């Protein structure tokens, strides 16, 4: 079970299980391993600190 985080603007969900391959973050990449300036890969107007945790790891 891996954690999920959601962008508060556009609703994009970062699921650690899937990562974000199109932006170069492999499946299994933990939230803590993402850089601090990681932007939402859909809207790009919210950054990592803005995301909300919606599911525990």
């Amino acid at each position, binding site marked *: 079970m891996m954690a999920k985080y959601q962008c*508060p603007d*556009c609703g994009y969900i970062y699921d650690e299980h899937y990562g974000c391959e199109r*932006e170069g*973050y492999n499946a299994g990449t933990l939230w803590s391993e993402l850089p601090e300036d990681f932007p939402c890969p*859909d*809207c790009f*107007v919210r950054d990592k600190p803005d995301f909300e945790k919606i599911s525990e790891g």
Partner: protein
Amino acid sequence: MTQQGITHNTASLQEASAKDKRWSKLKKYWYLVTLIVPAITIGSVLMAVQTGYGQWLWALAVVFWVVIPIVDFVFDEDPYNPTDEEQAQLLENSSYYKNILYAATVLQWVGLFAMTYAAVLGDFSWFNIVGAFLSVGAMHAVGLTMSHELGHKLNDKTQVIFAQVCSAVSGYAHFNIEHNKGHHKDVATPDDPASSRMGENIYKFAIRELPGAAKRGWTLEAERLKRQGRSVFSLHNELIQTSLITVAGYGAMVLLFGVEALPFLLLTAAYGWFQLTMANYIEHYGLMRQVGENGRFERCQPKHSWNTNFKASNLLTLHLQRHSDHHAHPTRPYQLLRDYADAPSLPQGYPAMMGMSLIPNAWRRIMDHRVVEWAEGDMTRVNMDPAHKDELFAKYHRAAEVAVDTSDSEGKAAAA
């Protein structure tokens, strides 16, 4: 929790009247104007070839620069913002709105083929070739607006692919990447090559924006590919993918119509880029986000974009003129974008303002005082061209307060 900002901000939106509701229903069909733009290009070529009157090649340029501003003037602003209920409905029917853009993308390519044929193989005067050039430029402007809309929907592969095919019509391969990841992040800051500064004229801005945006797009794509462990010179590079579509399309036209097609294609593409430059120029002129205590720029807010809400140009630009809502929620589909009553506002629609930007003195006469009013006379809050900073600061900073102080002291002196 909000999805694309749909469920909040209703308090600031106007209640829909019966008349507005009728307009909202009709508006669904008016969006077909996006298809009409390349259709006019194709139709004008057919008419020119059939009748021998090359003046037809001017048609779209005249529609863009003359007809739309007049229709804006006559039919005025679009007061309608969809209610929450209607927004849900508009989202449900989103395939209709997407299909318009897919079909228009195909027609844009057909339009470019048709006009290139007319310019190269038609027996038309240089004057009418200029008309063809300006018409293709106007078509590219609308094409890049469509590509902009499609390119923001990164969670939908079909829209992303069509965005690339659409950007390829005018050979603007880096647009979607640089716009989403660069412009939206840095908008209304001195760091953004695509946000114009007060005092900077359109030509100076173009020299900063065109190479600056291309460089930023390439850098951002290189960073993404590096994270993926791929070479920047691979077919996974989206700039290269889009450029290859352009090369294939332009190459086909050179084969079909001869090598004379190439200068026409390259010049019209460059003019199309300049049309986008004009849009960027007017969208954030002088507006600046402030640096917070954490040393970062404040989040982009509705007050950081210039809006205009005229009916005809709203349809032509897929609501791009409701720019504050677009920057607040970049993934919101065009049919949902709302007007913010208290956002900075331009006096005319985007096409008219773009035309105005070509005359720097006129532009500054219209816009500079608006920027000063926006900043409430505090010029430290304005994004200014460094070359004009001292002059603008001396002229406008706290000018109203200084005037009051002066008249006060004059009054006191007179009383004494």
